[in-house]
């Protein structure tokens, strides 16, 4: 098993060298930083699906939360907003929100004062409606005012690493709420529910212009490590300063990844992992053996989502732009699933391997498809069938097909992944 893993990783290393040789070092170094972030995200899904058997199809939503978090923390402070009535109006909206929440909570407790059955339902629905109206009455003008006078709220000017951490925290909070609502559902319902939740998160982030600038995008978001410009200023040439800067970012990303792997492995190797696997295998028996299945599933869902949030924040930090409309279920949910299925659910190294491999396949399939198309086009022109039209845009679509092909082949011929889960045998 170990030999197989080492061989596969060695192969991966060779693949990276080949890509580096063919595509150049700047391209490859960028892809490697992204691969590190995707590894972290894949580990998050591995925890949820591989360890916990939970079906999360809403990864995109958690990545967006992470992206928003790092933007909010690390983007420079917007004096126009803080100097206007905006904070005050937002405060009022916040109070309205709290009041609404209190109202709904009160309605849900209304049976204590003798309102029962249908009446309680009626009161609760009415409370929801009133709370919604109260909140909208405050937030709508506040949003309009901020958008008109200050553009958007802006950032807090904090360190990007703080933003990564906040990404994890934000993802944890949302995952907790989502888990409370949805984790009791059957697998297929859970899949649909999590997709729906991620779509709601996307709709909110995309349209809350006052908070996120929506489709107008926010950039440049600062790096946690020195930017290439900083190296250039201190006298390095363009090429090496680019590499130095990316190398620095990569080191930081790898450090985060390393810490994550260390923490996960430590927990998973012991009783915690055993308990989680028992819940995944047979939650009825696990409950009868005293494990609090609901709480533990929530725990693992939150844990996994935290890694997704941090990974999503890293990606946005690296590209320096937060563009809500660039998030797509294919690129940000299904891609991660393919990584896990191909790499091997339930095995951390499998998840990392799958993440790096699939990310490279994903980014390389476009130029590769272009080369193939060019070749075929050249040949077909010579034969007299004419050239392939619009090669550029067609090659860009090729990777979606390749992704689908890879996952179906993996399910058929290596259903447990390339580095499958290891059975923990006692010596």
């Amino acid at each position, binding site marked *: 098993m170990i030999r197989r893993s080492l061989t596969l990783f060695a192969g991966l290393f060779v693949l990276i060298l080949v890509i580096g040789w063919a595509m150049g070092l700047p391209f490859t170094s960028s892809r490697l930083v992204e691969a590190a972030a995707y590894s972290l995200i894949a580990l998050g899904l591995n925890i949820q699906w591989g360890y916990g058997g939970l079906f999360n199809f809403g990864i995109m939503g958690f990545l967006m939360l992470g992206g928003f978090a790092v933007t909010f923390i690390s983007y420079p402070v917007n004096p126009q907003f803080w100097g206007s009535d905006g904070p005050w109006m937002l405060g009022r909206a916040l109070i309205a929100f709290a009041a609404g929440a209190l109202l709904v909570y009160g309605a849900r407790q209304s049976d204590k004062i003798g309102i029962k059955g249908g009446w309680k339902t009626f009161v609760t629905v009415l409370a929801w409606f009133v709370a919604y109206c109260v909140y909208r009455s405050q937030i709508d003008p506040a949003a309009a005012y901020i958008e008109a006078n200050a553009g958007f709220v802006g950032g807090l000017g904090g360190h990007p690493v703080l933003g990564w951490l906040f990404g994890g925290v934000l993802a944890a909070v949302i995952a907790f709420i989502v888990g409370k609502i949805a984790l009791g559902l059957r697998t297929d319902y859970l899949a649909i529910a999590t997709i729906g939740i991620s779509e709601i998160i996307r709709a909110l982030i995309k349209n809350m212009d006052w908070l996120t600038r929506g489709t107008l995008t926010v950039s440049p978001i600062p790096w946690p490590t020195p930017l290439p410009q900083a190296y250039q200023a201190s006298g390095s040439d363009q090429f090496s300063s680019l590499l130095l800067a990316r190398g620095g970012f990569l080191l930081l990303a790898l450090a985060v990844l390393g810490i994550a792997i260390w923490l996960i492995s430590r*927990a998973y190797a012991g009783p915690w992992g055993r308990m989680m696997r028992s819940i995944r*295998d047979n939650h009825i*028996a696990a409950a*009868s*053996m005293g494990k*609090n299945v609901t709480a533990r599933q929530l725990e693992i869902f939150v844990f996994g989502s935290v890694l997704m949030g941090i990974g999503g924040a890293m990606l946005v930090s690296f590209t320096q732009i937060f563009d809500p409309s660039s998030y797509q279920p294919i690129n940000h949910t299904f891609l991660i699933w393919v990584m896990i299925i191909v790499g091997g659910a339930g095995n951390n190294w499998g998840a990392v391997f799958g993440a790096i491999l699939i990310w490279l396949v994903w980014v390389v399939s476009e130029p590769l498809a272009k080369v193939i198309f060019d070749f075929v086009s050249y040949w077909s022109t010579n034969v007299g069938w004419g050239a392939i039209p619009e090669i550029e845009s067609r090659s860009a679509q090729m990777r979606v097909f390749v992704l689908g092909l890879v996952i179906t082949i993996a399910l058929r011929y290596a259903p447990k992944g390339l580095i499958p889960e290891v059975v923990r045998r006692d010596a």
Partner: protein
Amino acid sequence: MAFSPKNAPQERFCAKSAVSKLTHASPYAHMPQNSPEYEPRVNGIRNGTDLVSSDLVIDVRNVSKRFGGLTAVNNCSLSVRRGSVTGLIGPNGAGKSTLFNIVAGNIVPDEGAVIFDGNDVTGLKPHQLFRTGMLRTFQIAHEFSNMTALENLMMVPGDQPGEYLGNAWFRPGLARSRETEVRKKALDVIDFLKLGHVRNELAGNLSGGQKKLLELGRTMMVDAKVVLLDEVAAGVNKTLLNDLASNIERMNTELGYTFFVIEHDMDLIGRLCDPVIVMAQGEKIAEGSMEEIRANPQIVEAYFGTPVEVA
């Protein structure tokens, strides 16, 4: 021996033979018998230690459960005496398994209450019942199929420090020392069950009988007040079954475990259980020793069956 409870309370030491037989008011009546001190509905009362004589460790009161149009358990009342091995028999579909699932918290009854050790535990979740000291096995083995036999046992003990992320990350010593204990105990149990040769095998690959043994082994991993055994003999070979039975007897007489057993194997019931409760159509129809049950023509008809007159 692997099963010495650390702080076995003396009052639990209560062998079958040592307890004088309860007088069963009218064991063969078709109506459920409610002793006078029972109130018909006690839902919602918790920790009412006064409700029950401490002699009864499980006390099921007027429980009903319907699935759609089918009434699986119908106003059923029965009890299990502390320290006894109580058998539950009845024809297929009599509601035994449903009743078991209600007692174990896997099914919430429509009506009635389950009193466990003096507390109303109706509606408690299985993992909460585990903490009160009630353990169960399943009729169809519920093994953790992708874990080894040893892991199947090691996961059982509650409150393992290593099951909490904080301890697993920052206090590995604490987790490790408990882990060693748990492992030792699991190995003892595995040896006792003669499963040593398959301890590293995935539980999903074991034979039906071995899975059953593993289930029994899980109940040995902790010190339980009551163990519910759901058809533990099915698929277990005779020799092993003998070991199993003597083990159950020993756990009962020496360590004071109480057992509540559903079983189709009449030999095993006859050997282990006193009293035996007979259920039919969701109700308790009789209770008594195996000899008494066998001697009753009505029960023999309902359960063992009598020849039909055919033209």
